[in-house]
């Protein structure tokens, strides 16, 4: 009777090992390393003080108490043009409700950034991250990337690629409602 039992255990062991390997392969290979969840989500957003293209410097810490949408972009980035209208709409819709949209220009020249702001009619504040130190602090992997910061200064979401205006509005509304309650 011992031999069949041992054989059963052996088969169970082999089956478990195969199941683990298959699970690891299917879950691991399906992941795109470029969309790995940011470890910053849920943490306090790294502070920055950056010069604005047209206006006074912007300090994130001074915006505490408001919802802040931080959008990293560049004039050479075609996907940034895709989301431009959505960001502008968000700014127009929520700027009087305690929401700030900040565009952070990444790896760009001041001239190109100004040209983009003019031609695309960007209305929200745009700052320059000329040393990319803010981009590195936010773990940026490319543009566009958008971070949503709640009233407590914590990052609640990170969007890789163009933002969706409706999804962003819904997220902002829920944060504003939670604050009001």
């Amino acid at each position, binding site marked *: 009777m011992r031999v069949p039992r041992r054989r059963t255990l052996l088969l169970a*062991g082999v089956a478990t090992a195969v199941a683990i390997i298959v699970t690891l392969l299917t879950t691991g290979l399906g992941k795109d390393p470029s969309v790995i*969840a940011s470890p910053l989500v849920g943490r306090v957003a790294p502070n920055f003080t950056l010069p604005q293209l047209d206006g006074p410097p912007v300090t994130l810490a001074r915006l505490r108490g408001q919802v802040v949408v931080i959008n990293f972009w560049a004039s050479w980035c075609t996907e940034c043009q895709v989301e431009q209208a959505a960001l502008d709409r968000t700014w127009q819709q929520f700027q009087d409700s305690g929401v700030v949209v900040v565009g952070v220009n990444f790896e760009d020249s001041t001239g190109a950034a100004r040209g983009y702001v003019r031609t695309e009619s960007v209305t929200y504040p745009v700052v320059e991250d000329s040393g990319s130190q803010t981009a590195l602090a936010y*773990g940026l992997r490319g543009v566009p990337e958008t971070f949503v910061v709640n009233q407590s200064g914590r990052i609640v979401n990170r969007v890789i690629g163009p933002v969706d205006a409706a999804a962003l509005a819904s997220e902002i509304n829920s944060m504003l409602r939670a604050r009001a309650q």
Partner: protein
Amino acid sequence: MNAAGTLRRARAGLPGLLVLIALAASVATLVIVAAGGHPPASQAQQVQQIAAGLHCPICKDLSVADSPAPLAQQMRQEIAQKLRAGESADQIRAGFVAAYGDSVLMSPPRRGVTGAVYYLPLLVLAAGLITAFMVLRRWLRAPRPDPPGAGSPPLSATQRRAVAKAVARLREEEPG
């Protein structure tokens, strides 16, 4: 005890003393080299070492040290800046991990699912060896069929008669 005897004894002990001195010198050299280690790396070398251990976040399979991307250049500058500010290599790496996660490391730490990737092949190898050992042991212990003609030698006519007699006697002795 005369002078000649003393000199003879001293000469006899000289090779041993020389060996002892040579051994002591070797040990002292080893200790000095081990304690001194390598000469301290220059800051550029330190930047290179740290950058070689970090993934360029916007490249495919390139380290920060090897990537020509502007972001990788900025990372190298930031590493140099932090070294100048007195941060250790571990602190600098931890700073990048805080922003990018473990995936920014060229050799992610061996824990969680990543740990399984390191240890699973060893486990599978061990399981394979155990299985092979068990199969081999069973194979060696299993009784083997006798080759044709390798059984007991056939009985002679006398032996057959003796066996028949013994069987008949046993049957007679059986009650009923």
